């Protein structure tokens, strides 16, 4: 597979699946262009259901489609889905356990970057994590987004796939597997500290682990690409090896990966956890890398958090 953006990669997975499964439809609240769904619409003109700029309606229509035996995928910006249509996801999809899939675009500061706060979403994972029955996937790059989308479509019931701007760096080899519900060890430099990272900030976590290694701090880095259900067994094993942990996510430090790992640590092996993420504030417009650096998600911020956690 040639290198694609995360959005195109996920859409390619949908198109391939739609060729095999005629119940698969995309529900678009005017998200066709943002979702890179034009090729889908060209190939399956009847199966891209445009409902207009109306996310709540999109989710309820998807619920009705699923109740009639279809397999709808609703695509919109992460916040318009999880905040504006929050109750529809919870009451009309998750509660009855309907087979509706969600793709949230512009996840994180990096996802919305220059658009500003209205189009940057750092609450989506926290919101959905509090809903029974919703599974959450946060792939790290385009190849992983492709595989995550396939994994999502193989699940029965509501799944949320978090994507970004479509301009995320490639991190992993295209043959890198994506296993639903499992964390994956990315680097193993030693048993001082465990780094848990999720999403399109993985490149920074990798660099931070390397930098730490150069300073004599051994870090094991894990890709947590399924936030819910969390791989408690492997997270527990990772925590038992180390003295401290750091979480790295492009999301508020409340509700997302940081919270999930803290909860796991409290239950399995209490230790110090430093959370790298947006520190409960609203950032501003800016170039992607500059924004992450400005709001505490630089490579050095991650390395600092690891060293701090060991003090």
């Amino acid at each position, binding site marked *: 597979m040639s290198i694609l953006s995360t959005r195109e990669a996920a859409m390619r997975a949908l198109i391939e699946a739609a060729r095999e499964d005629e119940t698969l*439809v995309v529900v678009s609240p005017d998200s066709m262009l943002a979702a890179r769904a034009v090729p889908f619409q060209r190939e399956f003109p009847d199966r891209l259901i445009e*409902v207009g700029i109306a996310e709540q309606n999109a989710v309820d229509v998807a619920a*009705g*489609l699923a109740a009639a035996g279809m397999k709808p995928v609703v695509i919109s910006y992460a916040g318009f889905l999880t905040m504006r249509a929050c109750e529809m996801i919870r009451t009309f999809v998750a509660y*009855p356990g309907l087979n509706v899939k969600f793709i949230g675009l512009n996840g994180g500061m990096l996802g919305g970057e220059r658009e500003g706060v209205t189009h940057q979403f750092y609450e989506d994972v926290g919101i959905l994590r509090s809903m029974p029955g919703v599974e959450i996937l946060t792939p790290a790059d385009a190849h992983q987004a492709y595989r995550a989308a396939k994994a999502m479509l193989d699940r029965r019931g509501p799944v949320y796939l978090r994507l970004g701007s479509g301009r995320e760096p490639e991190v992993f080899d295209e043959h890198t597997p994506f296993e639903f519900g499992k964390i994956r060890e990315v680097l193993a430099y030693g048993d001082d500290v465990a780094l848990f990272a999720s999403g399109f900030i993985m490149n920074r976590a990798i660099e931070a682990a390397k930098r730490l290694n150069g300073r004599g701090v051994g870090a094991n880095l894990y890709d947590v690409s399924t936030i819910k259900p969390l791989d408690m067994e492997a997270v527990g094993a990772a925590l038992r090896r180390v003295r401290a942990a750091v979480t790295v996510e492009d999301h508020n430090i409340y509700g997302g990966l940081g919270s999930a790992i803290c909860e796991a640590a409290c239950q399995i092996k209490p230790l110090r956890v430093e959370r790298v993420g947006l520190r409960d504030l609203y950032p501003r417009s800016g170039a992607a890398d500059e924004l992450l650096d400005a709001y505490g998600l630089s490579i050095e911020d991650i390395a600092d958090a690891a060293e701090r956690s060991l003090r």
Partner: protein
Amino acid sequence: MNTGELYRMANRLRMDVVEMVHASGDGHPGPCMSIAEILSVLYFDEMRLRPEEPGWGERDRLILSKGHACPIQYAALARKGFFPMEELPKLRTLKGILQGHPDMNKTPGIDSVSGSLGNGIAVGLGMALGCRFRNIENYVYVIVGDGELEEGIVWEAAMAAAKHGAGRLIVFGDLNNHQSGGHVTELSSLYPVDEKFRAFHWHVQSIDGHDVDAIREAIRSAKAEKRVPSFIGCKTLKGKNISYMEDNNAWHKRTPTAEEVEIARKELMG
């Protein structure tokens, strides 16, 4: 059923509601009474259903968007044979299968979760489109209250439904001019409702929602219109046919006493 039998069934269902809310000690009786004739016609004359096979794929669907009126839908489903009548007094208890608001996974015959107001038309639209994709030639009925038409999603769905040519989506508006906090006409500038649906390119009819023959005729007319969805605006009376409940919003959510049950019995079954 003939016209007389459908009227009798409507009152029978009303009586079931009074008895079950009395037995359970909780529920919304008033909002049930204004849709008794609509449900009587749908369940006992119109809808293609298989009570012995609730999940039958070809069945007509019904979403009670004003889900708080579910006691009367439960009564209809029980009388239709979807589950035993003995379930009715167990309304809203852990012992039974009848939730405070409809749940498609706990109660046979229920097609959708509902009760969070305003969502029924949107879900119904999805169902109608899904059935069309699957070449199922059925109808999707939705019953909405007038109060819940204040929700924005109603109009999102109304816009999308005509655009998608959802000709098999038939929506009944239970226009009783009451909502939890008072009269709809006092709390909002919703009315006229019919004109709004017409402006959204729906096929619109206005009828007396307690006239069984008018309901049947309106359904025939709605089915004849195949290109766009139908809205049947039904002028109704909240608490209809029970003297102490009629047009009295105190009965939106209230439990009848044993004495009130007997008054209702005389008025409905006498």
